[in-house]
């Protein structure tokens, strides 16, 4: 499990855990740390988190599986979350979503064969003033059009290949 988090990261997390009221409080932080370094949270990541937090793996998984942004199954190098909530809907998010599926050749929940992108919906990103919006990794993109999506995808793909 060492590869899921580096020794330094583990020390850092242990320090944070020691400083809070109840270790449990940091469950999301620990899972996010695993996700950041590994892309998603495998069973071993849940066990590692459980160990760090003094919980059983089930107790960690109960929380982890509640959130759709904690990935408990493999995802591509980048996860595309397209907002499908009401403001984005008024601004044609469906077109964007459909276009993404076409150019990536996948349906929601799938990962492109090159392992680059996973496509998922999301609820409102709080970017309703720039709808339709999507997130790729930590990056927020608004005012999406079919053309803009193409450039964004190209840039993002280029980045993963670099």
């Amino acid at each position, binding site marked *: 499990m060492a590869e899921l988090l580096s020794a330094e990261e583990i020390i850092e997390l242990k320090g944070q855990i020691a400083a809070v009221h109840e270790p449990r409080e940091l469950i999301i932080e620990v899972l996010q740390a695993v996700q950041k370094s590994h892309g998603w949270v495998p069973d071993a990541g849940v066990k590692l988190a459980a160990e760090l937090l003094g919980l*059983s793996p089930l107790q960690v998984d109960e929380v982890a599986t509640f959130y759709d942004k904690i990935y408990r199954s493999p995802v591509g190098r980048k996860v595309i979350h397209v907002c499908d909530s009401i403001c984005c809907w008024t601004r044609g998010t469906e077109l964007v979503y459909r276009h993404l599926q076409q150019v990536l050749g996948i349906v929601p929940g799938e990962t492109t064969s090159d392992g680059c992108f996973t496509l998922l919906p999301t609820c409102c990103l709080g970017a309703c003033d720039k709808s339709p919006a999507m997130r790729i990794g930590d990056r927020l993109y608004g005012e999406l059009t079919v053309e803009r999506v193409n450039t964004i995808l190209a840039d993002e793909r280029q980045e993963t290949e670099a």
Partner: protein
Amino acid sequence: MPTLIIDNQSVTVPEGTNVLEAAQQLGIVVPHFCYHEALGAVGACRLCAMLFIDGPVKGMQMSCMVEAKDGMVVSTEAPEAVAYRGQVIEWLMLNHPHDCPVCDEGGECQLQDMTVASGHSVRRYTGKKRTYLNQDLGPFIHHEMNRCIQCYRCVRTYQDYCGGTDYGVLGSNQRLYFGRFQDGPLESPFAGNLIDLCPTGVLTNKPYRFTSRFWDLQEAPSVCPHCSLGCATIPGARFRELQRVRSGNNPEINGCFICDRGRFGYDYVNHSDRPRTPLLHGEEIPWNEALETLLQRLTKLIECHGSDSIALLGSGRASLEANYLLQRLSEQLGSAAPVYGSHAGRDRAARAATTLPTELSASLADVRNSDLILLTGADPLAEGPMLALAIRQAVRNGGRVMICDPRPVELPCSTEYLACQPQELLQLLSALSLGETLPTKLQPLVEALQLAQRPVLIGGGDLLGAEGTTALLAAAQKLNSEDRSCLAMVLLPEANSFGAALLAADGPDFEQLLADMASGRIKALVCLEADPLTDCPDRQQLLQGLEQLDFLAVFDHLPSLIAAKADLLLPTTALAEGAGTLINNEGRMQAFAPVFSPGQPLRITSQGNHPPRSFSTTTPGALPCQAWALLAKLCDLPVDLAKIRRELATQEPRLAGLPDLLAEGSGQRIQSADKPLSQPHALITEQVDALQLLACETLYGSEVLSAHSSPLDPVRPQPYLLLHELDADRLGIAAGDLVRLSAGEIQLTLPAQLSDRMAAGVVIVPHLRRTELESFYPGQPSQPCRVEKVSAL
């Protein structure tokens, strides 16, 4: 005590009762799921709606979430409430597979009942149903998630009530999953309660799977025979086979829960080697001949060798009535009073336990309600599993638990642990009882005892012995005062150890019997559901004694070692096949009634196929008789349980309530003894240098009946030896190493386990029946031993 009106009927309920419960008091059952009397109300299923017409809250409310208050006027039948409840059922049924015909829950399914009760019959939803993959939850529980209605009862049972951490709820919204992190056996020894608590067929009894439909079972309220607590159970039988046990409800003892030993220990009743016909020297004989032979042989021996050549041996497994009639038999024969129990140490500890005044005796309900529990030499999970659960409830209510023990006693709750040598336990208890000052390491304990409002002292008869038990009771009495009661509880080895000890009074014990047998004075031994060959710690001497017997008669339903040696074998019924009374460890008499009649299970006679086509007028294997009935015949008494109970009650004033006892209900405490408690003396202990060997009970391997139950096979531990890490270090032993244990004559090679949460200088071996560790018997003073490393892991 608020008074409210529900459906035009008035009802007065205790403060804090919710309206759903208040309605139930009137016999009005409104459909509900997430509320459960043991788990409380959480308002999740939203099914229990009633219309509140007048009073402090108005409108449609979930009745389980509303506390009953004066002046409430409530309708359960208001059309909007009825329509709404039908709607909730429709929602719960949206994804339900409707597979009742192949569901084990069918017939005893709360979802079926509530669906009918709510009036819902047509599902309008025609969309896709959500489906799940199931998990392998181990040998006890079958998982069928598609039937789930998301009432969260399982999680609340498993995590909150039982303290398990490996089963829970995953996911969110409509995609919830109730299960484990990964496939694997449920870890909690109370996991079986999920079967009873899940209102649908998601969590069903795996050993019982597809065995019977509920309505075909013969069921009756009964008492668990697998430890001294006497939990209420409901065994279910069909085709002459005991097929399952579910929890009964005794609010004084187990509430609605039982442990997995109690639930899955039943299969000894169906054991294929079980004695089913009277045998004389291995030859089948009719019952009347068997009884005649017994009387003739005994009379003959008395004629030749005098009445003290006959020994009768009762047990904590046999019912109170059977044990009593053994006494009558001895009187009739003019022989010595029966010995009760094949283990003198345990017998003496049990006798000490019977001296506690009833008002100082703690029930499990008292334990649940306690604010400080002191465990001295008691390992609840091994010696009385449901006690562990009761202690957890005390902790959930803010109580504190302190453990003084040489063993690494584990409980499903937070505890404070103090490693103590066995001798230190005695010192501690006698100091407490005499009001002496305690060693500084025990100071926190003294402070906690001073602060506590409802303390309970709990001890294990095995580790404390008679001396320690006496000290424990005296300590409770000492700490008991006008202002606050201090109660005591002692764990005993068998379901009726208390009853047997009560009858034993000042009679002889097994040590005396052994001496008499060794001297050759005893010519005949009659064992009543007792197996000295497995229970007497001094096997050598016993074997010598047995060799000198002219006649050995055994009443039993277990294929025991002694039964195999018997000249005359008299097959008796198991608990579920007969009636009788047991007295649990707190001195509570509990009557039980027959659930079914004995007989060779159809599964065995037909090898699981169609019933055999050879017909007979008698039922195969139906010969076992109730021991008390056989003994009554031998004593020439009418075979009438009520009469026997009346007689017993006049003989022994402490059993005064016995004739009024019903098989239902929560039983009745015996009367206190009129003698004052004996006082312990100050104990001086000697320093010991050698490692001390201590044999201890385990959850699944020690109790004799469940040791013969195949559903428990997968969870029985393998032999091992437990050492303190410090001792292991000194001896160069690592966890998993094979070590040689030498104690007295015995040498064994065992894998080592290590712990730092136990007394140093102590070596612990589990008492595992039907393994090489069988001969290490609990209830003995520790003995010096040696441990050496043989090979590394």
